[in-house]
């Protein structure tokens, strides 16, 4: 699935400028705990989260996340958008909640890229 498809499915709003939406995402991961993201996400996944701070971008960068989707229509602060722009990670907001956003992408064929975290 390309980012362009994803933005359409989520009626998303791309917050970063000149993001390359032809980029392919391999799967998805939904989490609000950054440590869970770091522990479980596979490279080149889209990260769906309710967190808006710049830490989301740093976490995404460390975990090789392809794009970030902020759920529940939240507006991330300017510093988050600026950092995403700087690091070249597309930042997208959607009015859907976490449950529905994940459900829409999964139903459209996007697989999960969350692995089980064992003790």
């Amino acid at each position: 699935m390309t980012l362009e498809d994803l933005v359409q499915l989520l009626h998303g709003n791309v917050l970063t400028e000149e993001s390359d939406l032809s980029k392919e995402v391999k799967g998805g991961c939904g989490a609000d705990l950054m440590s869970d993201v770091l522990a479980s996400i596979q490279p080149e996944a889209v990260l769906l989260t309710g967190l808006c701070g710049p830490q989301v971008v740093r976490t995404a960068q460390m975990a090789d996340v392809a794009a970030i989707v902020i759920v529940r229509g939240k507006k991330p602060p300017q510093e988050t958008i600026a950092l995403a722009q700087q690091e070249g990670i597309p930042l997208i907001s959607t009015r859907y909640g976490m449950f529905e956003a994940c459900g829409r992408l999964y139903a459209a064929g996007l697989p999960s890229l969350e692995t089980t975290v064992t003790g």
Partner: protein
Amino acid sequence: MAQDQGPIRKGRTITDGAAGLITRVEELAYELKIDEVMTRDVKVVSPDTKMSELLELLRQARISGAPVVLHGRLVGIVSIEDLIRSLRAGDVESPVSKYMTPRVLTVHGSDPVIEALKVFTQTRVGRLPVLDQADNLIGIITKGDITRGVLRALQYDYQEEEVRRYRASHLFEDIVSDRTSLILRYNIKPRDFAHGGAASSNIKRALLRLGASPQIARRCGIAVYEAEMNLIIHTTNGGIIRVEIEPHLITMEAIDDGPGIADIELAMTPGYSTATEEIRELGFGAGMGLKNIERCVDKMLLESTPGKGTRLEMGIYLHPSALSKDANLSPKEGA
């Protein structure tokens, strides 16, 4: 530019590398100035020049048109099509002023290249005279000039990054010693959430530039990011991150002077955390950090004395073969 690319993007899948290049071309259209790519040595004619003289000029200079200038001012432009019209009319002894296009579209030298591209896509003109701030003619620009300018800039970019990567990745081969290592140090301030992860970001980038595989860079990045956030969240005075890169091993240390961990075993237990509610709202402090680090690194050593401080050492081997011959992290010489 955007119009030209539409079909390319829709028509076929583009690799990451190609996508990166396209984005760079778009950037260059905004970054490059018209006077950086235009042709400076412009052949001009005056309104009184005869069409037959224009024919000679076009033939000798191998160009297809020329600006018409009177007393240093641009008054028109004349092209090979105008010349053909005069030839058909058997009127080549007439002055250029009779056949030229008097109202000329122009661009400014200080404008970005995208301005010229817009005119080229919106009109049928093939060349645009370039003016300076005082409206003096300083050059002429065609689509060919733009293509050449962009290619030159791309090649330059490519060489820059190639040279950087080459230099960095050959660092260890070029320097002969019994033991070569590169040490990076970062000072981490307590509660500096705004910059949390900046050091880790730089470390990851440095490793990639030094030629580490994406997998190694990712493991190091995640581990050191958790350690960096721990310094920001828990320490009294912040701390230091020290990364030592050797050809076979990356050693990352997070060192602070307090408050220290009373029960290391308890701190390592998944889910155990002393973080405040405020920190949990940032998505951290879920008691997963140390466990995450352990998962990412080949070797982990956590030492702490309450009231004195904590030292976390993380090691990642660069070649699997290195595992056997260096099973223990080497003792540190005084850093």
